[in-house]
């Protein structure tokens, strides 16, 4: 599902965010990415979600070669994945329902299916009662759950989440993790960045990143 070979990401400066990254994540895996702030977690997730381009190396995600993807194809690649951004990235003048429905509208799904699916996923994240509210009226935790609902609504093959529980209390964080596990059990590959080691199940695969270098954590 995810293949990185000798990937580098360098920002003007130059700032070397990622150095010689090699990583393979198979279909259906549940993988955690850990590391201190500024280690390169967000940079890596930006590359995986075609949020940014690699400086060097080879990057393949969900069957798409992101190192050479054209501007026309990038939209179709993004439809195959679900991304939870650290800063939620919700459209402020659209209701919770409309924000969550966006990925389905983009795919031109039928309104009846959109209604049913959005209601279902809002129920999963416990926000059915907020469907008609605007994001600015929600708490940080609720906004995060809306972002998660939007990332799941189109049943993506790969779910990437950057600190998805960063704004949630421990109880809700565990609930969200359970939700991710259920999604993973349905066959979706899940790759989550987190600071919170308590949320990582003992049997999970964990990758650590520090100063732009990646290493597999043996547990």
């Amino acid at each position, binding site marked *: 599902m995810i293949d990185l070979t000798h990937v580098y990401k360098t920002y003007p400066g130059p700032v070397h965010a990622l150095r010689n990254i090699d990583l393979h994540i198979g279909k259906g895996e549940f993988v955690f990415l850990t590391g201190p702030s500024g280690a390169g977690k*967000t940079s890596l997730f930006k590359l995986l*979600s075609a*949020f*940014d*381009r690699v400086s060097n190396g080879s990057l393949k995600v969900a069957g798409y070669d992101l190192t050479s993807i054209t*501007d*026309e194809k*990038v*939209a*179709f*690649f*993004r*439809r195959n994945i679900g*991304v939870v*951004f650290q*800063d939620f*990235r*919700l*459209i402020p*003048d659209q209701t919770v329902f409309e924000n969550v429905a*966006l*990925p389905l*509208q*983009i*795919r031109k799904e039928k309104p009846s299916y959109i209604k049913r699916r959005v209601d279902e996923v809002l129920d999963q994240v416990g926000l059915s009662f907020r469907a008609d509210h605007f994001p600015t009226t929600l708490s940080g935790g609720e906004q995060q759950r809306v972002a998660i609902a*939007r990332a799941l609504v189109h049943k993506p093959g790969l779910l990437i989440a950057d600190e998805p529980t960063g704004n949630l209390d421990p109880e809700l964080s565990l609930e969200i993790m359970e939700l991710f596990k259920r999604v993973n059990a349905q066959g979706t590959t899940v790759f989550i960045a987190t600071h919170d080691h308590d949320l990582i199940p003992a049997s999970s695969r964990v990758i650590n990143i520090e100063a732009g270098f990646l290493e597999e954590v043996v547990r």
Partner: protein
Amino acid sequence: MSVFAQALQSWRRQLKLQLTSVLVMGLCFTTILVVSLISKNIEKGFSSWGNKVEMSVYMSEESGLEQRSKVESALRNMKEIRSYNFLDSKKAQKEFMDQFSGLVPELKELKDVNPFLESFELELSEIPASMFSVNFVEDIAKRIHDLDGVEEVSYGRYWFESYMGFMRGLKASTFLIAMILSFASLMIVGNSIRALVDQRRKEVEILELIGATPQYIRVPFVLSGAITGFLASAFSIGLGFLLYGLVISKFMNAVKILGISDKLSFFNPLELLAIIVSGVLIGAIGSYLCIKNINNGWSAVQTKA
């Protein structure tokens, strides 16, 4: 939800910003409209003076009744001539004496001498603005001059040339002012649209990141721009009409004295339609150009997180 409904919804949700844009764009359009209206009416007003060209056709001393009849018949058949009036030499002398003998009493002693030639006083038909030129009038004068028995054709050439020069200058200066104001207005309109689209940059980024195609993102923006352009042009027509009515009522007496009251007019329906269409196009094209700059598939990379 249809694309148009999406555009309308997005327009309503950014009501304050959109209304501000309508106001700014509307005022700019009004400036252009007012300049065009002034230019159009000044031209029409002055043209109505100049288009009433009068000519005097003097017959030669040797010309007889037959030649006079032929000239009269030729004048009657010329479509450029609205009316003519024959003035024989005695009548011409009498008119001259009536006007000037009071000022120069010595003229009465010359009553047995008649230096006046028989003449036709012509008034030309109203000349279409597109054909109105010195050459056009000169050509008519030459055709009449070539008729047998015609001694001279006079039409105040010097006055006419000065008038045409004045009209050319007037046209050029109103065109220049209109161009400068239009350019400045379009720059303001462009900035207003850019500000509007910039406000929605985040929305474009989000739509891109969840897989929206450029077409999906751009069409509602362009429609929204077209709605803004439509409202701005409609606003400018309304405001322009109010100002026009106000100016006309304020200066009606002066307008009547100048004899151009029936020549002044607001824009005709076709021109109004052109203004509306231009407004819609400016709004839509402006939005498209702005959104195209942002929505290139990688807008999030261009923005610092």
